[in-house]
């Protein structure tokens, strides 16, 4: 196969070849083949990290047979870390457009309401 040339690379920001169009400094996706390959190494490193954290979760919660409250705290902390890695690196939320952050902040607010609503409600009313 022919080696990849600069002109073949698709700029994810402008979708123009040769980087002819304007570049947003807030976005950090790679533009050159070298930068894209560097990103690919980061993805593989994140994969290794996710695998290690999965092993850790299973060992801590299943292997050690902890009491429920400890198991819940540890499992959720590790799951949150894994979620951060997936959202931050694979979904590129560490360097996304402001409009997406806006959508996600709104979603997080309603998600919190969703969790708070039933929690706050006095659900133990039956039979009283």
């Amino acid at each position, binding site marked *: 196969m022919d080696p990849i040339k600069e002109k073949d690379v698709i700029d994810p920001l402008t979708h123009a070849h040769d980087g002819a169009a304007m570049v947003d400094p807030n976005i950090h996706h790679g533009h050159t083949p070298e930068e894209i390959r560097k990103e690919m190494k980061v993805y593989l490193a994140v994969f290794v990290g996710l695998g290690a954290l999965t092993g850790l979760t299973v060992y801590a919660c299943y292997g050690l047979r902890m009491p429920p409250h400890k*198991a819940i705290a540890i*499992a959720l902390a590790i799951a949150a870390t894994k979620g951060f890695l997936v959202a931050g690196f694979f979904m590129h939320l560490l360097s996304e457009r402001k409009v997406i952050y806006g959508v996600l902040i709104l979603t997080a607010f309603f998600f919190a309401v969703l969790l708070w609503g039933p929690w706050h409600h006095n659900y133990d009313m039956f039979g009283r």
Partner: protein
Amino acid sequence: MDAHAHAAHHELEIPYNVHPRPDTGLYNAKFGIWLFLASEVMLFGALFSTYILLRSSAPTWPRGWTFLNVPLATVNTFVLIASSVTVIMAWSYLRLGDLKKGRIFIALTLLCALGFLVIKGFEYTHEFQEGRSPATNNFMAIYFTLTGLHGLHVIGGMVVFAYFLFFGHKMWATERERYTNRIEVVGLYWHFVDLVWIFLFPSLYLM
């Protein structure tokens, strides 16, 4: 192409499906998938909320690891994480202009998704053989609802990956950027499916 045909083609062109909109800074499909994912957060959020409510209000609650197959679920977690990597590698190779490697990684993603469903199928079969169904208790009801809904999302992703692998790649010849964007969009969806499982696995199996 004569001037009339060119004008007609221009009229049919859907705006901002390749180039970013000036106001959002995103092409429309990417903004659209994020809005869709926001609605998905609410869908799974409602079920997680139900799970918390049921569990916290129950005097006793079964611990998943005492009867669910944790080793198989752990393997499934690795499989799904691997599929998240393969889809982002596919997108990266497409950005590098390498369709062949891009398609190989899409195929690997599809295989991982299939593997996930096969393993899940073994788990479900075992549960039913042991006499555990959604009617058994609240835990099993929420287990089957959450994992079943997640499984439906996996199947949905597989359909899209299969389309891009076997048919959709023809677009590469004429609209390379648009095809690459499509893989990015389905990749975002797939990472979300992975993200949901990352929380489902400890919630149902390990706590």
